[in-house]
């Protein structure tokens, strides 16, 4: 059964570039914010399932270092999202 998606101004769906390893694993390497700017992900420091109360949803949460900032990048089933105002 298909699920309906919700529109929430604090939930920003983003494009993500990722490196896929031969063993099937992958790592996000950069993301494209909703204004079209691309940001390189310097390091992924943590990966776990977590809910986002701010954006509304749950997914696999990648804690990423971008420059001197730490941001959360969520993989929700087949889409990536971020919380607005955290980055």
């Amino acid at each position: 059964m298909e699920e309906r998606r919700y529109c929430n101004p604090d939930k920003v769906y983003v494009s993500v570039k990722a490196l896929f390893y031969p063993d099937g694993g992958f790592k996000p390497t950069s993301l494209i914010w909703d204004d079209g700017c691309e940001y390189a992900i310097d390091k992924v420091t943590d990966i776990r399932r977590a809910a986002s109360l701010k954006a509304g949803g749950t997914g696999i949460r990648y804690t990423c270092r971008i420059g001197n900032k730490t941001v959360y990048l969520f993989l929700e089933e087949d889409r990536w999202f971020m919380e607005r105002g955290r980055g």
Partner: protein
Amino acid sequence: MLDLSYESAIIIEQMFLENAVDVMKERVILHSDLNNFYASVECLHRPEIRDKPVAVCGDPLLRHGIVLAKNYPAKATGIQTGEAIWQAQQKCPGLVVLPPNFGLYLRFARLAREIYASYTDQVEPFGLDEAWLDVTGSCHMCGDGREIANRIRARIKEELGVTASVGVSYNKIFAKLGSDMKKPDATTVITSESFRSMVWPLPAGDLLYVGRATKRKLAARGIVSIGDIAVTDPAWLRSLLGKWGEVLWSFANGLDDSPVIRMGEESQIKSVGNSITTPRDLETDEDVEMTFYVLSESVAERMREHGFKCRTAQIYIRDKNLCSISAQDKFLRPTQLSSDLAEKAMSLFRAHYVWENPIRSLGVKGTDLVAADSCEQLSLFEDEERRRKQEKIEAAVDGLRHRFGHFSIQRALLLQDQKLGAINPKEDHVIHPVAFFKEGGLP
């Protein structure tokens, strides 16, 4: 020949004794209940309504306009699950009414089960939002029942953004009662020492399978609490309530020993059925026939999906005054053809229903199932070739619907009424009610 040293023999004996103690010790059963499940999932996804009273309700246009779930602010205004939307709005004028998003709830139920599965493989779902877990075998690694329950609650909150209440006990019935005692986000432990003081004062109606009718019968005889049931003579309860009387007595005394079903050991399917409250009342035989065809197509498609044929058809009729009847009849040979089901349903309907009131709900069920590829007696008097062709046609229709959607192909009969023809019971009703005792009756 096996030659054991004295030390080895001692070690083996100790292992044997430990295993024996394990077998004798009480089970540790958890019952996890996701609080206000539908409403909580909606509030997680819509931060703007989190602090407002929210109710998830069925579609009033399809006459499913009742409250399915509500959050705590809505509950505080006295709104009850199951009441009509207009009643809820009268109690709470600012109520935020949302349509259900079953696809999303199914995903969250699956994610919760994944969390449970990291503690035990004995996880038995009870509806979408509840599950029993037997963690007896995990206690030596993960801590006692309370500790595992607390860990599960913390993970559900952190990972899913909703809360759960967990009951811990030595049987499924008390574990379920425990999860109802403290809400939201709490653990309640009921032990074999404490159940008399914790469970017995509760109203009889809190016990699983004490419905409104049973509660009334018991109350008329002065039995109002679970403790009253527990101290009543089971033979007398049996004379009052039949075999359920003894079952309730054993529940109240903590004697339920039904196992938590292991994942993957799905209960054997005994019947395939669909029922529907129609978008408008049915007033003629033609309306009923149309609805039976819609339902039969869904039932037949699901039987084909699971590789079954049925030997008996059962119908269920409820009129607009909510009086219901059901009837059943055998087929001459097992079938999975929607036309066979619909024709049998219609003949049962004509034989059993007298048109006094319009009809509100109809149901069709195929029971007495056999494997679709099992041998069957061919008929001398039926056109076997025609029957085989019919089976091929229905399989082709399944394929078309799978590829292009349910409404890509329809019977011409269903074009007569847009509302009735637009029902898609197979996809609209994937969430089936569950019973503690799976079909097949008492343990």
